[in-house]
């Protein structure tokens, strides 16, 4: 289990992560979501002991990563697929990692086979395509057969075939009882992969929950069409309904379709359409993170201005 507790990381006077608390549990794929620059990679680097937190902590099964004797047998991570010496072959790369963690040479052959790199195992890693590099990174992550896995934007740059492979792969890791944390800045990528979500913005936790919990929090919209538009507007004003117009259609929020139907009936207002649609997880994500995205945009502008 990964436990992040009141984690804060400042770079200079800017907090990349502030007071972030969450945990990643075994048996499910957890999506770690946030817009660009929201602190996902920073958090993962702290978990791996690559950078020191300003305050708070991140632990693996209760211990800081830097204290683990055989870290790759507890946590497998893929943060940057290109973080490999380009002059070393895939096999030698994996063997050196195996040696450092007392993992057998036979396991190296096994993982090469699992990710489908056996045929190119003796080629220099610098010659690999992005997809092959991702696979090598995944091979390194699962080398120690760890109970916890962490992937930073693993879907970036994969072709549709690769995306499907990796989705099924994450699911199978979770089904084997492992804790799997996968980051992304796109809910569309994650909504099919993850079962639990941790959503951050500006380095702070915005929302945490299972797919169902988030779906409940998503907004319901009621769509109404009627030939008597002015009458409907009058009723809406009287009832205090918030609505917007999309062409012929009125889109209402914070009201049930049943209420709208009954009140329309009471006013003998003919309706041509009365329907309900819930917003997608993607819409929810956009709405939740809208503020932090805007903030980042402003920051960039300000920085650009300062450079001039």
């Amino acid at each position, binding site marked *: 289990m990964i436990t992040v507790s009141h984690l804060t990381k400042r770079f200079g006077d800017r907090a990349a992560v502030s007071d972030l608390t969450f945990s990643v549990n075994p048996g499910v794929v957890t999506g770690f979501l946030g817009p660009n620059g929201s602190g996902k990679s920073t958090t993962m680097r702290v978990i791996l002991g690559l950078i*020191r937190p300003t305050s708070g902590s991140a632990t693996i099964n209760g211990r800081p990563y830097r204290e683990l004797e055989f870290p790759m047998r507890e946590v497998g991570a893929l943060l940057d697929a290109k*973080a490999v*010496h*380009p*002059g070393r072959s895939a096999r030698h790369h994996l063997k050196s990692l195996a040696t450092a963690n007392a993992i057998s040479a036979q396991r190296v052959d096994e993982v090469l086979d699992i990710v489908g790199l056996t045929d190119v195992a003796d080629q220099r890693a610098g010659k690999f395509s992005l997809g092959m590099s991702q696979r090598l990174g995944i091979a390194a992550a699962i080398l120690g057969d760890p109970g916890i896995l962490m992937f930073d934007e693993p879907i970036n740059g994969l072709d549709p075939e690769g995306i499907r492979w990796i989705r099924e792969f994450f699911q199978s890791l979770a089904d084997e009882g492992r804790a799997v944390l996968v980051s992304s800045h796109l809910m569309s990528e994650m909504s099919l992969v993850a079962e639990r979500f941790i959503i951050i913005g500006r380095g702070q936790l915005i929302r945490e929950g299972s797919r169902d919990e988030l779906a409940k929090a998503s907004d319901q919209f009621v769509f109404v069409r009627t030939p008597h538009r002015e009458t409907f507007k009058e009723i809406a004003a009287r009832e205090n309904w918030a609505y917007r117009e999309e062409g012929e259609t009125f889109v209402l929020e914070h009201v049930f379709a049943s209420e709208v139907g009954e009140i329309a009936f009471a006013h003998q207002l003919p309706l041509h359409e009365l329907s309900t649609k819930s917003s997608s997880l993607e819409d929810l994500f956009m709405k939740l993170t809208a503020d932090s995205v805007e903030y980042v945009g402003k920051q960039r502008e300000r920085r650009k201005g300062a450079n001039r």
Partner: protein
Amino acid sequence: MSGFLRIFRAEFRKFLTVRSSIIGITVNAALTIGFGALICAVMNQQYTSLSYQERLTFEPVIFSFAGILFGQFAAGVIGAQFITSEFATGAIHTTLAASPRRLTLFAAKAAVLKVVLLVVSAMSVIVSFVVGQALLNGPGVPRAHFSDPGVWRQIILTILYLVLLGLTALAIGFLLRQTAATISVFVVVLLVLPIIDVLLPSSIRDATFKYLPSSLGRAMMSGETAYIYPVFSPWASAGIFVAYVVVLSAVSAYLFQRRDT
């Protein structure tokens, strides 16, 4: 197996499995031996035209070690690249994920470099000596033998000098993290500092010159302590250089442990 030994073996494998280190070692040996041989051949041929003074200070061992001039930079490049190439490619993140105990990692890398440079330098220094002395075969040309007093000390301290230079570059590399910057600093210390020092007033020069790494190296290689400017004895020079490397490595390892990456 203890943690250190595991990381040592992993780092050893890493060193041997990139082509650049093998090329570095080969170039190092070829230049060291080749240039020493060239100088000895020239000296052998020109001996009869040397002045009385030149003949008096003729040091056959030093001539066969002329290739160390190149070898010292090769040792620096090998030491620097061993760590800076990891920072340049981002591979350091993978390394640290596999070996998160940083002091152990630093010590393991230093140990691998020590072993590699010890073996490579011992080979190239001894071959340089044998080849060089064999080439100093003209009539009346002075020539050294393994059995001559001090010759083994010269050989051993020359090997040690090269190992220490590699460790210096490694420690600088851990601090600066960039290949170009590390090698620049290394070259400045070895080549530029002595030039600047020689320009200083003689009182300052004579007090400081002997502390420069290049002077310590020259003293470690020399058969006698007499040199253009005052230097320490060979063993004292070796001791001072070891102390430099210990302090520099301690600072570098401490900061590596403290800093983000």
